[in-house]
């Protein structure tokens, strides 16, 4: 079925279909639907456009659907095609607080090893980077991504790209180490008490959120922590 034939059948009554009366002139000013009087090249262009758009929209929605759906036989088969299409510009993840919401508060701490001009070295106490964020978030109707997302998602990225033994998984894992180290360096600053910060260490404390009394799943109440090795920092890692 071609559009020019189509329009012949309905005549002119279709042009205003479904439009409320009194729509602005700008909308009304658009030309009438293509009909039999349209030249052949125009009809070919229109048919081609409809074809390309139909295929394009179908493919787009299909690939995005397979991307957001759980891994299945189809998405395994076409894994390369799906990821190749969706990454990077259509990347999306809508598992907001799903399948389960995060059930612990994560506090990321950092400390520094400082080299003094007299050759001595001292280690600072732990500084809670998360507490710095929370001070800015509390009683703030519009928290900044600088406090709500930067460190939180950097740590999430680190956790996702490291195995249980703390080894980096691929190039992303190394990137995440550099990122977390740099955040710590930025927050601690290059100089402390007249000395130069030469190493940083990260420590994360996981405090489980106690489930409500009426929930049958008691969950864990044990605090856990993760201490990363000392990392040397160079000048380029400070702002």
């Amino acid at each position, binding site marked *: 079925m071609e559009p020019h034939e189509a329009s012949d059948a309905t005549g002119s009554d279709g042009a205003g279909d479904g439009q409320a009366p009194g729509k602005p002139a700008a909308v009304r000013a658009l030309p009438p639907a293509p009909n039999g009087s349209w030249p052949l090249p125009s009809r070919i262009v229109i048919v081609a456009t409809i074809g390309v758009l139909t295929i394009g929209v179908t493919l787009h929605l299909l690939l995005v659907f397979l991307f957001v759906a759980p891994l299945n036989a189809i998405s395994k088969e076409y894994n390369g095609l799906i990821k190749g299409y969706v990454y*990077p510009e259509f990347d999306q993840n809508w598992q907001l607080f799903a399948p389960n919401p995060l059930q612990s508060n994560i506090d990321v701490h950092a400390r520094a090893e400082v080299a003094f001009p007299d050759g001595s070295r001292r280690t600072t106490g732990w500084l809670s980077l998360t507490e710095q964020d929370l001070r800015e978030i509390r009683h703030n109707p519009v928290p900044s991504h600088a406090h709500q997302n930067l460190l939180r998602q950097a740590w999430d990225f680190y956790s996702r790209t490291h195995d249980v033994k703390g080894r980096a998984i691929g190039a992303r894992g190394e990137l995440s180490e550099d*990122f977390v180290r740099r955040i710590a360096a930025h927050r601690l600053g290059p100089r402390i008490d007249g000395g130069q910060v030469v190493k940083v260490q990260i420590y994360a404390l996981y405090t489980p959120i106690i489930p409500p009394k009426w929930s049958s799943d008691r969950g864990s109440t044990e605090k856990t922590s993760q201490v990363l090795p000392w990392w040397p920092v160079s000048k380029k890692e400070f702002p």
Partner: protein
Amino acid sequence: MSVEKETARTSSPFTGMGTKLDVAIAKGLNKITSAALAPYQAAVVRIGFSLTFGLYLLREWPYRLDLYGTTNPWGFDLAQRLTGSNHAFTVLLWSNHRLWFELVYHGVIVASLLLLLGWHTRTMSILFMVGVLSLMNRSILLGDGGDTLIHLMASYLLLTRCGQVWSLDARRRERTATPRPDGCDRVSVALWILAGAGLALAQATGFAKLPWGWVAILWGLWSVQALWFWAGRRRSPEVRALLDVVANLVHNAAMLVIAAQVCLLYATAGWYKIQGARWQDGSALHFPLHLHYFSPWAGLSQALDSRSIMVTLITYGTVIAQVAFPFTLLNRRVKNVLLAILITEHATIAVICGLPFFSLAMIASDMVFLPTNALRWGGSRMAAARDRITARLRRGKGPGSRDEDRRVTI
């Protein structure tokens, strides 16, 4: 032969179906070619997302360098390493110079504002998309769900005719008695020449590091604009009408994708929740209320959390609403009720979880499904409010060119 005779005698339930099908297809094709459908919904997407992103950039202005600029812990080298593997588009990796960053950041604020107002919408929607992608892909790890949604919608918006109503473009079209060939005024041409010259210069000097795909997209869009100018100059109504039909088709396809994208969002958000034990036992809401990063008002969160029945109802309600959303589109009345619930829920999340920009983006995408009447009613109320304010200001200042503004429609 005898069989054929038999069937000819009984009247088939399919009699006339061919004609009916033809008419239905004809009507459908006529509809999608003759108009850019849902003009108010498209305008809502435009206004909603440009407003959200513009406000976000203004809010982050004091932190812009830490988030996207030169003092970003996600340093230039780290971003380069990641983009080297995923080929995301960002103009911010063309140079690490502070001046370039400031130019881009403030440029995106201006583009957001102008897109919001609908000033040369087609050009602004391109600049807006370039800006959104550039900022977000510079700091990929910074974004939350709201940012992802803005990222997607900015790309889809480009393909819609989102300036048909509630825009300066629409006002200009209405004011001129004989509308000029679309976009053929001096400012449009100047913008087009500027954009082309800028892109050519950036490429010629090697400043722009563009993958070929993006070269094709950007120059393609530029050529499309040239085509409109050419059709306008030639005063060829046939070519203009053809361009209009193609633009309508692209618009309608993009609006379908936008609607489907929102459905996919809710469907995945809902279906994944069903699988979680916490959503099943109705306690899920309890946890975000105790996440320090998402409870700026601890008293408010505790007050809500202390009502176990409320927690369960909201937890179950969220899952039901999200899973049901795509199906409610089949029934207008149910859909509108659900939309009201979802918009209220997002407004609440904005306050309780401290996620105003995420919520604003979600509300903007919910509003795509609002009925045209509701949108027009809202628009006229806002126009009336604006007229009252301007009238009051006028009275203070004395008579001005009043009837010019009375013709404005919003």
